[in-house]
């Protein structure tokens, strides 16, 4: 630390910008190395008549900027995939990514473990009953206003609702399907993937039905219907093969295609999402 310091005149000239380039450069070089003189310039910055900037306001906004939580891993993943930041936020705030998704995956895990414990045929029935309905329940929860308080302001803001719902559906499936698939591998047999087409079909049904009623309600209805059908089939034949064979799978594919067409045709009705409350 040198004993040399800026004299008051030089300091004033620097702050008021009435100095020469050479003098200013020399002052700046000294400031980098001299804490007391920096303090004097900083003190002068807040008292000169035309203050440079509003330091209190800049501090407020700086603090606000650093206190905003960093985007979640999932959100950053979406942004890395090319989604604009605003849309990534909209997709990521879906409650499905917090509680509902975890609960449903845990449910599948439990059922898969049960299936493995009970034995081959009955375990398979159990798994077939649960796995296809999980994605549609999660999708429904992903944009049902009752499950997601953040949705309402989103629907008020001018934003294509169809796009939001499709984005969220894709995002939910991208998360739910690998998880359920993984648990499907726990279930014995080569039919671990047979539930995929029914699942896609049910998601499409929920999307189509959501143009009339609340998505959660339609998802529950679809789930009950599926559980009842499985119950009947299991009681009659005792073998899960019927569900897994080609005709039944083609039927699910047709169901998915038909429902998705209905959804697209009736997509304008989605603007009425809010009256569900």
């Amino acid at each position, binding site marked *: 630390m040198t004993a040399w310091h800026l004299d008051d005149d030089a300091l004033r000239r620097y702050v008021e*910008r009435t100095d020469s380039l050479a003098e200013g450069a020399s002052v700046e070089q000294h400031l980098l190395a001299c804490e007391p003189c920096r303090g004097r310039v900083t003190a002068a910055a807040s008292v000169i008549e035309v203050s440079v900037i509003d330091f209190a306001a800049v501090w407020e906004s700086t603090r606000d900027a650093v206190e905003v939580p960093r985007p979640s891993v999932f959100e950053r993943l979406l942004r890395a995939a090319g989604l604009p930041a605003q849309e990534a936020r909209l997709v990521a705030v879906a409650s499905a990514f917090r509680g509902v998704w975890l609960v449903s995956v845990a449910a599948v895990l439990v059922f898969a473990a049960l299936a493995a414990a009970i034995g081959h045929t009955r375990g398979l029935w159990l798994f077939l009953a649960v796995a296809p309905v999980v994605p549609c329940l999660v999708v429904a929860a992903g944009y049902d206003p009752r499950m997601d308080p953040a949705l309402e302001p989103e629907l008020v803001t001018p934003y294509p609702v169809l796009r939001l719902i499709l984005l969220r559906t894709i995002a939910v499936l991208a998360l739910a399907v690998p998880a359920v698939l993984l648990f499907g591998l726990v279930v014995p047999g080569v039919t671990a993937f047979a539930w995929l087409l029914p699942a896609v079909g049910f998601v499409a049904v929920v999307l189509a039905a959501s143009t009339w009623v609340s998505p959660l309600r339609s998802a529950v209805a679809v789930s009950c219907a599926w559980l009842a059908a499985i119950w009947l089939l299991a009681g009659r034949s005792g073998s899960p093969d019927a569900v897994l064979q080609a005709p039944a799978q083609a039927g699910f594919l047709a169901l998915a295609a038909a429902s998705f067409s209905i959804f697209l045709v009736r997509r304008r009705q989605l603007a009425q999402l809010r009256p569900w409350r």
Partner: protein
Amino acid sequence: MDSRPNDETLLLAVAERDMGAFRTLYERHAGWLAIRLARRCNDRDLVADAIQDTFVAVWQKPRGFRGDGDIAAWLWGIAIRRLVSRLRTRGVAAALFEHAGVAPAAEDQVLLSVEYGDIGQALARLSPEMRAVIQAVVLDGLSAKEAAQLLQVPVSSVKTRLYRAKAHLRAALAEGPS
């Protein structure tokens, strides 16, 4: 010296997410950084944004300071580059502060030439454009590209002006006091 924590201590505390230390760091440095930035750019909003960006960057990467040199110099390096980046993203033609806005009185001129010698006079004789380039590249240590963004001119102009300014200075110094 005194019992106040030094900048290194504050920076370590900021790395531990200490908002109080962050505030102290801001209060200690925002002032002179803003004054120095305002000498490069007379758009107050841009300077305010650059100051905010600087401290957000410090909060996010307090360990970016490697411990070499002074923290003040490190902060200045961040701040001037944040300003350049703000200028680039806004695409505004922010008028650079015209340094020779207030002409020093005749007595001051004499004093300056006594105080700073030939180099001060030589610098004073440069055109404002050349002085701006000298300031950005030689005194602020920016690259030609960064200086071009700060001054809103093509990189090639920065290079030519720098070359000519150096030639002028060299000639002026070789000539000796007039």
